[in-house]
């Protein structure tokens, strides 16, 4: 081993030891250090009661994480735990909540900061109402059209039946009963 490698190795071994010493000083001495902390994902802050508060979860479920994952803030910050954005948004929600703001005020603050796209669903106002109403309007219109279609056909069928001779079926009662069974027993 040449001198440069030896000195490099020495420095490399001293730096992590110093880092570990610093970490240990900050943490509970009854908890063991991981053999290789960097393998276990990013370091995480302990969770408290307010992180689990239903009110906070409800707010965060209405807000979209802006990291591009398409998930809401609560789901993103509790999924895979690699996102750096959702924990920050969570802290912001907590800060506003502890500052006495209501859920609606917190939502409004996020909309003011990030725009409407920060909401997991568009607010029910203005053009967005078209978005909410359109599926039901389409199905209702389809329902009405279908009823008209069925009524038209049913009337036509009644007229045809009325015009047709009544004794056209050349079958005994037993045969008709068997036919009815056939009709019942075939495909749905």
């Amino acid at each position, binding site marked *: 081993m040449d001198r440069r490698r030896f000195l490099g190795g020495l420095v490399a071994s001293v730096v992590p030891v110093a880092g570990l010493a610093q970490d240990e000083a900050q943490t509970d001495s009854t908890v063991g250090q991981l053999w290789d902390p960097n393998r276990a994902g990013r370091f995480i802050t302990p*969770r408290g009661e307010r992180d689990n508060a239903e009110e906070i979860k409800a707010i965060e479920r209405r807000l*979209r994480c802006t990291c591009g994952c398409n998930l809401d803030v609560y789901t993103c910050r*509790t999924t895979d735990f690699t996102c750096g954005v959702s924990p920050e948004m969570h802290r912001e929600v907590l800060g506003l909540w502890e500052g006495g703001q209501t859920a609606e005020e917190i939502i409004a603050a996020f909309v003011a900061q990030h725009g409407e796209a920060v909401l997991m669903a568009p607010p029910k106002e203005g053009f967005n109402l078209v978005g909410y109403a359109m599926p039901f309007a389409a199905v209702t219109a389809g329902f009405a059209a279908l009823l008209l279609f069925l009524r038209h056909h049913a009337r036509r*069928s009644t007229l045809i039946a009325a015009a047709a001779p009544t004794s056209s079926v050349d079958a005994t009662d037993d045969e008709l009963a068997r036919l009815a069974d056939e009709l019942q027993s075939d495909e749905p």
Partner: protein
Amino acid sequence: MTLLGNIALWVTLLLGVWGAFMGFAGGLAGRPELARSALRAVFAVTAAVVVASIALLTALLGRDFNVEYVAAYTSRNLPIYYTISAFWAGQKGSLLFWALIVSIFMTLAVMLAPRRDREFLPYVAAVCLVVVAFFASVMLFASNPFERLAFVPQDGSGLNPQLQNPGMTIHPPMLYLGYTSITIPFAFAIGAMMSRRLDVTWLHAIRRWTLLSWLFLAVGIVLGMWWAYVELGWGGYWAWDPVENASFLPWLVMTAFLHSVMIQEKRGMLKKWNLALIIGAFLLSIFGTFITRSGVISSVHSFTQSNVGFFFLGFLIFVAVASFWLYTRRLDLLKPDGTLESMVSREAGFLFNNLLLVGIAFSVLWGTLFPILSEWVRGTKVTVGPPFFNQVNIPLGLALLALTGIGPLIAWRRASVANLKRQFAVPLFTGAATLALLAALGVRHFYALVSFALGAFVIGTIGQEFARGTRARHRQYAEGYAVALMRLVGRNRRRYGGYIVHLGIVMLFVAFAGMAFRREMEATLKPGESAQLASPFGHTYTFTHLGVSQYNELNRLVSAASVDVRKNDKRVTLLTSEKRQHVDGFGRATFEPSTEVAIKSDLLEDLYIVYAGSVAGTEQTVYRFTINPLVWWVWAGGFVLVIGGLIAMWPGAGSAPGAPRRTEAGYGVTLAAREA
């Protein structure tokens, strides 16, 4: 190998274009020699695509990192099965995989077509060859899997850890099989229109292909849900992501077709509607591909954004315009043979079922595209996430569930009051009793209550159908009940397979409703410390953190956090969730650490434990504990649905080709004549 791959792609493109021209020309001009040339082109193109696929697989398995695609999606230490799955893991490879499957399907369609369908084959070959040639052109001009780098990297980037899951080896292929096999019914539909043979023959040709496609899509969707649940770590299985929606849309439309086609078969009605559904299903499959690959809509599933989106958009517009132009030119041949006789009939039930299925498809499409529309109209981006889709689709879905139970209870043609009373008594009682029982037990969630009650109603319907059929066979043929049941299903596969599919749907709805009672919490625990979480079923789980161990695996460094689980103080199991740091062949980290969830599943609920991470590198650990009720029933429901689909699809389920169906004979009231 890349040279061979490129040559094979060029051969595919040129022969595809040639075969398409020959197919259309041979069919329209009635020139059998041209039609034969098109059919030969089918085999030649398939062979060329197989050669291209082998070339790519050889490059992947040979770790030829000079090939850009190989370097981007594999590494030296990637296990062999994931190396194979890298074939479809990226944009470029998946395009080739798509072309491969379409080629195989078109070859099978040509080889397996019965004599009565021969007239359609030149057109079928031509349409399929257009599709394959399109994919070859996308690869050659925009996204070539055989592109080489200017240098040879020492190792590849490896496969995304979230794709290193057994589900990913089969979920995407199943979806691709579903998406691509829609091409065959679409090709037959075009063939029927071009040949002007729009009688019931083309329906026989495509019904089984549509069912196959529907089945593959169903399997792909359920496997995708399973993958999302076990791999992504968010504790759910469906997020209404645009790409999930894209797979759901053609499935819904094909489901509508599989119901309405029965009216055309029995009554000669809804010809225009059925044709429109098949064209729509194919367009939606291309639309799904466009969404996945264009980057026009933000999605976690999207491939790298590239200009292939323009290709797909152009192709989508071309196919839509050409298909509907042809469709409008054939409307005069699509007049109904019969008429509906009553608003209370099985036919009317199918029509309402179609309305809801297409309505749900429309609402999903609408929600998926609404962000673009909003930006276009208002200049403001909005997000349309699960709250929107749930609000819109849950009521429609429940109405559909109700129809699943109502439809089979109504007689064909016209139902009498006496018939309705007889049919509805048991299912209505089952549904009402379930509603009362759950309400008495304290269930107050509205949609969940409705879902469970409707589920019981549908099960009442299905049970009644099976019981009556079995009893009838038992009486008529003196068979034991078990034998009677088996023969009942075996001899009416399409009908009873359909009921089994309905049963699977009920199980899925019940499982979805269960998620309304989900419980979750985060907890920070030192080794030996515990957290408690109450189950919606009344008991309490105690989770005790045991510690974190670290070790090396083939291509990853693992940190495993273990939890002892007790249920009401009785020990249940030990669960271990992991953090995985994937590395390349030189030990260098390749991706962000990923999470492996620990899951314990039973009929009632899933325990879902996620190791979130460690506090300042110690064994003090943050967990997310979740209790997901009834999730097991999602997978069971998916399995039952597939079994039902297989039974319905099994050869021999329908009548012999060309023979009059018994019910058709009945409608013609020819029984007396035949008896005579």
